[in-house]
């Protein structure tokens, strides 16, 4: 799989290349700003774009805007955003169109190489990867909508789903059996009135409801 990296800190770029290579990616191009990133994506059509949120010239949200642009021009291109801090609106912007193949992680998570590689691979395969901190922040604001009907445990499970974890991953994180997780998830689907279609799609819908609930 081929990846494109956009990160203005040369030091960190080198580290990211090594981590991605370890994860089985080939780094086709690297860029230091949004323009370079868009050119690289146009040229290489990568299987993953790993993008720093804050880049020159303004050092605010250039990365987010570039990611949206990539999703618009080349739909389905998986993108992972790396940020110094959590800004839930970035996540909401990015996830509002399509949640498959999207990731939003804090920069410091790269240090946990194995977890980071797993998250990036998940996104490249069309999944989602949200930083636990993003999820915590999103949960905070939801207390007056259908999500309020969920028990604390179910909210926890939903949060982990939003991070992009599988049933097995959730079971491991909560130290419960996989069948217990499945039961929680079915309760969540029922409480959120999600249509009975295939399980993966319902999962995405649940996460979407979770993320988008207050953005209507």
């Amino acid at each position, binding site marked *: 799989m081929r990846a494109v990296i956009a990160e203005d*800190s040369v*030091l*960190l770029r*080198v*580290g*990211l290349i*090594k*981590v991605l290579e*370890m994860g089985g990616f080939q780094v086709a191009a690297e860029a230091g700003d949004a323009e370079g990133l868009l050119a690289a994506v146009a040229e290489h059509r990568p299987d993953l774009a790993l993008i720093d949120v804050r880049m020159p010239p303004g050092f*605010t*949200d250039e990365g987010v805007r570039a990611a949206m642009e990539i999703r618009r021009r080349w739909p389905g291109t998986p993108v992972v955003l790396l940020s*110094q*801090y*959590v*800004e*839930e*609106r970035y996540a909401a912007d990015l996830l509002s169109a399509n949640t498959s193949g999207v990731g939003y992680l804090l*920069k*410091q998570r*790269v*240090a*946990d*190489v*194995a977890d980071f*590689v797993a998250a990036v691979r998940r996104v490249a395969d069309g999944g989602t990867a949200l930083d636990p*901190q993003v999820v*915590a*922040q999103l*949960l*905070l*604001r939801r*207390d007056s909508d259908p999500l309020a009907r969920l028990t604390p445990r179910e909210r926890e499970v939903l949060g982990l789903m939003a991070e992009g974890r599988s049933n097995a991953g959730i079971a491991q994180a909560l130290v419960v059996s996989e069948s217990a997780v499945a039961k929680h998830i079915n309760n969540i689907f029922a409480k959120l009135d999600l249509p009975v279609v295939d399980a993966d799609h319902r999962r995405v819908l649940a996460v979407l409801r979770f993320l988008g609930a207050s953005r209507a």
Partner: protein
Amino acid sequence: MTIPAGLTRTVLRAQRDTGFLAAGVLPHLALVPVWAWAAATTARTGNRLLTVSVSAALVLLGTPVLTAVQRARYRVLIGVDVPRLTPTAPEQWTWASTARWLAATRPWRKIGYHLLLGPLLALLELLVLAVAAASLAGVIAYAWSWALPTGIRQDWFGHLTQLPAYTAAGLLLLCALPWTARAVARAEARLALGLLGPSRAQRLQERVDQLAVSRTDLIEAVDAERRRIERDLHDGTQQRLVSLAVNLGLAIATRPDLPSDAREVIARAHLEAKEAIAELNDLVRGLHPAVLEDRGLDAALSGLAARTPLPVRLRVDLEERVAPDVESVAYFVISEALTNATKHANAMRTEVMVSQVGEVLRVRVTDDGLGGADAAGTGLTGLAKRVGSLDGAFHVSSPVGGPTTITAELPCAR
């Protein structure tokens, strides 16, 4: 023979003061010809209207010039700075505002100084100068009395035996001269400060304005400095630490063949690097979180609330962003209050409300903990000071047994 330093100083000061007084004679007498002309012409022609209007015009024209001359004299010769009276011009020139503006320049006092007081001061100055001249003449009487024609010499001094008395009197006067000149110069300076300078109220008003501006500048400078340090830490140190942690993580992930003790050392280094990143993040958040500057209070507070181990009910009701210094103080009040609730109050839940009512940003943090917070403690006094620096109101209510409520009201007019 060495001359004592004190004596030199006294002589120099006497010279300076006397020179200052001498320089005052002419400008203090400047308006006397106007008096004299007006009196003489009125007496001759009886045309009072003409003389009064012409002399009034001369006085009005002469006053600013003479004031400038006097200010220069006080400043240059005895180092007394009589502040210039320049009231701020009104925004609209109506009759009333113009009259107020004119009154604020205190014209009658200036005219009084030059027209009435001036001649009196000139007399005083001439008197001091005469004393100076007489004392010098007396001291050196031996040196010149012989040159006088005999008749005059006998008339003035009687017999030469009286010369020592004149010399002694001259010496006495000379000794008194420095203090006399000093006293007169000081008295003149006081009068000038009172009559030519701004009133006490005006001076205080000006000082308050200056202090308000410099305080605002200072707060802004401190905030800017915090932001700069935060940026430097984010863009420099943090990137380096993350890179270090990434490399250590890579070493663990890619080299399973290393001996177990080496792996253990690397794993520990990796852990420490990650802890350093977390500590640096906390430090940076304590300075001025980047999200606060980039995205405002709402976004920064949801990050803060999400990191707080207690359930936080957060309500932020702001239509637009407020000034950066207000955002910054509001953020720190809430941050500190949440830390207190977590660490000391044993609270189960907290509530944060931020709303803008008119031109006031109201911040309220409530917890259901033990209460009994010490409003005089360092943390809370620090907050009160920061709120006070923006002219805000800060209040803590924390009865023993709880609940604790901290409120801050910050003026946020833009």
